[in-house]
């Protein structure tokens, strides 16, 4: 069923071509028949007229007009009368003339002088009038014509057509007989049946359309094969190729079919071939680009995992430590981010926390983050001042910073025994600090310049005292600058409010609560920046045994 329909579709163009040829043929037959028939009738009528008037005018010339008055008055025939009658008979016998007669017109009727009285073979039913017979005019047109040539003496040489039951379809011609003074004294009339004309017409109408139809059929066939060879077949080939092209687009096959019509179709085919190869090139290029993109995506994914695994992510991080509790999260906006946090034991009694944000995003920021994180951790040693750590790290970062990135960073080291919290700030956000029993408040601390921004910068450490129960919350600008669909920033104020709602909870509960609050604020809007948070709770002072103290 499906195959049949497909074939039908393929033949559509052929059908359309045939249909239009048939319609064209019919129109041609009708038009040609009418035109030729019209021409034929004109020509035939012309012939009839010429012949009829040749008979009447030559007979009118021949008759001596001065004799007419005598015959009319006396009604007697003489030798001359018989001679003219024999001429009339001779004409009637040898031609297609039906009636050949001479008469004198009167107002309402005519008076016969001569009437050919010879019968052709097989003829029975003809009227023959005698000298002096009177008869009414046969018809109005005859009467008018006869009046015209007889009374008005006008030369008139048109056939008078009549169609009556008695005489059938008949053409009549009349010529005036003049006397020696040039005055009309009688009229010669000839009547001819138009049987030949009608028979000719019938014959013509039987043959000519047939001939035309045959000629047109042959022309249609020829043209059809021409069109099929030059147009339909190439177009079908083209259509088949385009179908197989879609199926074979991904295979590496060239078009092997070709069309040589030397006209627009060949041109079309060539353009099509060009397009085909262009599309193929494009597709292969696209697939290689896509493959490349997929590869890069996969590698970025790996990078993301590597980056994530660089940040301490096993919690509780120090299950054996009762003195403090620390928790941190990072959620990158893109595959790899520029934020990082870190925490590690500098020695037995000192815990370091780091929060930092590399300007920019993506791979460059992530690479720079790795360098920054490693340098900070490596340089944080028990005997070096934190300010010096950042001064050194800044110096080293400036050396390897061709992309002019920079890092805002905060590092703090808590002495678990004394509770002294030493910190250094390189352009990073203010931390929130919650004193035991108090509220989370942003702590204004002196800001040094960002890391890797400018060579030779000196950083100075600050210090504060922490008591058991105190908490520090540190974050990156991804938190305060989280934006909702109205382009509003999350801000420090909202952060402070949510922190104080959950201030009694453990760090492990505080961070998810803040994240949830941010998500609720942002709603449908995209996350533009990494969101990184760290919370440290100082739970109790570390007791050192006397052995350790020594």
């Amino acid at each position, binding site marked *: 069923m499906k195959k049949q329909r497909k074939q039908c579709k393929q033949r559509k163009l052929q059908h359309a071509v045939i249909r239009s040829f048939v319609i064209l043929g019919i129109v041609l037959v009708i038009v040609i028949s009418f035109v030729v028939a019209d021409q034929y009738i004109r020509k035939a009528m012309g012939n009839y007229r010429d012949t009829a008037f040749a008979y009447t005018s030559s007979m009118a010339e021949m008759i001596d007009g001065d004799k007419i008055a005598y015959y009319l008055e006396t009604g007697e025939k003489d030798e001359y009368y018989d001679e003219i009658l024999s001429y009339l008979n001779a004409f009637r016998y040898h031609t297609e003339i039906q009636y050949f007669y001479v008469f004198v017109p009167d107002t309402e009727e005519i008076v016969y002088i001569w009437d050919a009285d010879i019968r052709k073979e097989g003829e029975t039913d003809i009227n023959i009038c005698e000298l002096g017979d009177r008869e009414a005019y046969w018809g109005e047109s005859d009467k008018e014509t006869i009046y015209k040539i007889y009374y008005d003496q006008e030369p008139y040489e048109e056939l008078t057509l009549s169609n009556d039951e008695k005489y059938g379809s008949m053409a009549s011609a009349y010529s005036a007989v003049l006397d020696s003074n040039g005055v009309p004294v009688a009229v010669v009339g000839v009547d001819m049946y138009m049987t030949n004309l009608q028979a000719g017409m019938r014959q013509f109408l039987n043959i000519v359309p047939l001939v035309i139809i045959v000629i047109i059929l042959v022309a249609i066939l020829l043209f059809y094969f021409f069109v099929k060879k030059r147009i339909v077949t190439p177009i079908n080939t083209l259509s088949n190729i385009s179908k197989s092209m879609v199926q074979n687009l991904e295979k590496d096959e060239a078009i092997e079919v070709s069309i040589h019509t030397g006209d627009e179709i060949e041109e079309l085919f060539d353009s099509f071939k060009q397009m085909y190869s262009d599309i193929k090139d494009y597709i292969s290029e696209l697939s290689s680009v896509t493959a490349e993109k997929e590869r890069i995506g996969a590698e970025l994914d790996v990078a993301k995992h590597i980056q994530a695994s660089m940040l301490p992510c096993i919690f509780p991080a120090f299950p054996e430590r009762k003195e403090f509790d620390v928790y941190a999260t990072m959620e990158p906006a893109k595959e790899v981010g520029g934020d990082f946090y870190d925490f590690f034991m500098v020695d037995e009694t000192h815990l370091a926390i780091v929060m930092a944000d590399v300007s*920019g995003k993506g791979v460059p920021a992530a690479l720079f983050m790795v360098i920054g994180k490693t340098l900070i951790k490596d340089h944080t040693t028990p005997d070096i001042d934190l300010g010096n750590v950042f001064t050194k790290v800044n110096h080293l970062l400036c050396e390897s910073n061709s992309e002019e990135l920079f890092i805002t960073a905060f590092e703090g080291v808590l002495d678990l025994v004394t509770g002294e919290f030493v910190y250094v700030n*390189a352009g990073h956000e203010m931390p929130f600090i919650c004193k035991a029993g108090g509220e989370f408040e942003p702590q204004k601390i002196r800001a040094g310049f*960002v890391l890797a921004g*400018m060579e030779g*910068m000196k950083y100075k450490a600050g210090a504060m005292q922490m008591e058991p129960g105190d908490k520090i919350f540190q974050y990156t600008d991804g938190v305060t600058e989280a934006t909702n669909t109205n382009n509003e920033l999350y801000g420090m104020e909202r952060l402070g409010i949510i922190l104080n709602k959950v201030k009694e909870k453990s760090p492990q509960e505080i961070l998810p609560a803040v994240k949830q609050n941010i998500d609720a604020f942002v709603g449908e809007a995209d996350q533009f*920046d990494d969101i990184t948070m760290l919370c440290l709770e100082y739970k109790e002072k570390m007791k050192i045994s006397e052995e350790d103290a020594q």
Partner: protein
Amino acid sequence: MTIEKNLNGTELTVAIVGRLDTATAPDMEEVLKESFEGITKLILDFEGLEYLSSAGLRVILQAQKIMNKQGEMIIKNVNKTINEIFEVTGFVDILTIE
């Protein structure tokens, strides 16, 4: 964000209106890059600046570094919010803010 440049001899004033963040910082970087040649004084007019992100800070830092070599850079009409950002990030130490 719209950037309006006004060159007066070797003194170039760049006025920024809108947000200077990750999305718009590359435009700003492009504009500055093509204008640095021959400039001895670069004035950044921040009167219309609504927001400044770290990507924006990076562009400002780049400009400052280039202008350190060939002249001076002045930032004027800094509003309170932006000034806070400069303070928090320590940029106040390296920028000339009027």
